[in-house]
């Protein structure tokens, strides 16, 4: 089974990478492709400012689950909101819940307790997958989680284990152990790392993989190298070069250098995507989906006409 097919069987796909590399666009691309392959898919974005809706051409979610296509939904998640809901649910009495939610103790706890927001985010995904979401939540096969940027992405994946080591009894402990098992189970949870062929993103991608090995004891399923410049024309010796072509050549050379470094440090399935002259929106998403499928065929040997990936 190729890595793309593997990913399409996961319940949870976590997409992570350095800020600014196009993580959200890739999360949307994966979500769309999974949906096209028949999986009922929700793309969850954890960012105070919403972006994913733009890619899919739907209104901002504002925290709600919004349908984008026949089997595709999006949601912008605020971890704090999820926590507040958990408190409401546990305390049942509105008056008591209000007192807790308004208290400075809770406020500081929610803002500062290590791992809490991460647990809330993953816990939310798990509940939806088990069909325990709020009334009106669609039945889902897969959740694609557009995780916060790298450093936080590792924290997200490592939080359940960290918390389960600190808290050894009670419901928090049960929940964190369950989530640690989910994140550690490559059959259920897929990890996709997005990067660009530039120095810092490559550095972070390599560090991220090491951090995942150290803290979650597993490797990502797939590496997506985004935003590559096309090969530049050969330079004619002695001829004064157009400035545009000069810039193109240098950016492409940087891409090639970093791609080579990435290949040495990371021998795993890899997708390569071109930089596209398109603004963020449905047209870009459609193009990315197509180029994704093409790269999957070329680099991963995914055959023609295989489901959504072709």
């Amino acid at each position, binding site marked *: 089974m190729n890595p793309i097919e593997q990913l399409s069987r996961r319940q949870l796909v976590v997409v992570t990478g350095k800020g*600014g590399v196009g993580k959200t666009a890739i999360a949307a691309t994966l979500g769309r492709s999974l949906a096209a392959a028949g999986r009922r898919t929700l793309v969850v974005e954890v960012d105070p*400012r919403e972006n994913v809706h733009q890619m899919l051409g739907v209104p901002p979610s504002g925290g709600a689950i919004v349908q984008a296509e026949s089997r595709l939904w999006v949601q912008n998640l605020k971890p704090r909101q999820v926590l507040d809901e958990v408190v409401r649910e546990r305390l049942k009495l509105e008056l008591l819940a209000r007192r807790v939610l308004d208290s400075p103790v809770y406020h500081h706890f929610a*803002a500062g307790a290590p791992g809490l927001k991460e647990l809330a985010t993953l816990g939310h995904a798990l509940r939806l997958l088990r069909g325990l979401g709020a009334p009106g939540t669609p039945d889902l096969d897969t959740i694609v989680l557009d995780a*916060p940027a790298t450093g936080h992405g590792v924290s997200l994946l490592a939080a359940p284990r960290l918390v389960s080591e600190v808290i050894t009894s009670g419901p928090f402990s049960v929940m964190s152990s369950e989530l640690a098992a989910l994140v550690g189970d490559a059959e259920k949870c897929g990890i996709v790392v997005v990067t660009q062929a530039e120095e810092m993103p490559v550095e972070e991608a390599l560090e991220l993989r090491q951090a995942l090995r150290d803290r979650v004891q597993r490797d990502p399923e797939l590496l997506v190298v985004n935003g590559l410049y096309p090969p*530049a024309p050969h330079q004619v010796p002695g001829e004064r070069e157009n400035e545009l072509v000069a810039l193109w050549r240098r950016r492409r050379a940087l891409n090639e250098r970093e791609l080579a470094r990435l290949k040495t440090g990371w021998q795993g399935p890899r997708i390569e995507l*071109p930089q596209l002259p398109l603004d963020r929106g449905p047209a870009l998403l459609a*193009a990315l989906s197509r180029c994704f499928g093409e790269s999957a065929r070329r680099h991963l040997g995914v055959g023609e006409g295989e489901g959504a990936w072709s």
Partner: protein
Amino acid sequence: MELISDRYPLIIVVGSGGVGKTTLAAAMAVLSAREGRDTLVMTFDPSLRLKQALGVGEEAKLQEVPVAFDAPGTLHASLLDARQTFDRLIERYAPDEASRRRVLENHFYQHMSGTLGGVLEYMAVERLFEVAGSGRYKQVILDTPPTRQALDFLEAPSRILGFLDSGALRVALRDWFDEEGRLKSTSRWGALGRRAERFLDDVVGMDLLRDMAEFFQAFAPLFEGFRERARQVEALLRSPQTLFVLVSGAGEERIPDTLFFARRLEEAGYHLGPVVVNRVHPRFVIEGAPPPSADLCRPTGWELLSWAGERDRKGLIELAKLFSREQPLVDVPLLADEPIDLPSLEALGRTLEERLAAWQRYVSRSS
């Protein structure tokens, strides 16, 4: 306006991740030393290349390291590391060896000091305060954490103050446990108390509560020094001599981020200096460009770069419309190669100054 000058001994560089903050901070520092000021640049996560350009390594986490730069002013660099700074802070404020050890060896502290929200951010300003007060530098340039909500670090002192002043601490500091590690009040309450204890154990876990209580007890003697320090740090950030430089990515997509930062800085009463739109694609006069590619996934460099130049120009125009005329707004062009050594960093610093001067000329001409 002049950016690198004696007017602003402290410059803080903010912006979203991946926009080139760290490189610009280093460029400004190199220029400042060139102009004769003893300068320190403090950064979080420089690229390998930048570390090589400055000639510093891991040792810069422990102390400020001199950069081998032949200039009228000295140049130092320091890397920020939350855990190290936190440990140092505890060493400083602990009244005696025993209380120091109690905190450092506490299970809860060991687990949380690197991960606790805002700690990294707070440690940045804490360390900043340390060097600003030392009088060793005429110019300090601080690069901020690479998070999308990098402004967290600005709020860190007030958050710590808020925490210290809130009831949370009073509750935490109460003498909860008896000698045997059992909850005091609940053992007084008999059967009911035991039920309460079981409930707490179920929800949070008694071991964790004991660790936390112990941590706060151990930490208590340090609080007063901490509180005073957080107040001073806040005053330093709001000083009119502290200037914030907001770095933004190019293109319309980045505008909301930039506006968000600018608004937050102003609301908080910080002094916003220039907004720098970094890595702006140049616009090219295209003659004899080949036709666009027929293959969607293989656009030509011609298509890409002229599209990017146009996109970035639109972004700049939009951004200029959204700011007042008095707001300095400059663009720094995308370089074919990122700076790899001190001369190229200095050149980048000069480009920034020149763009600022050009903005100044433009504003005075059109008014």
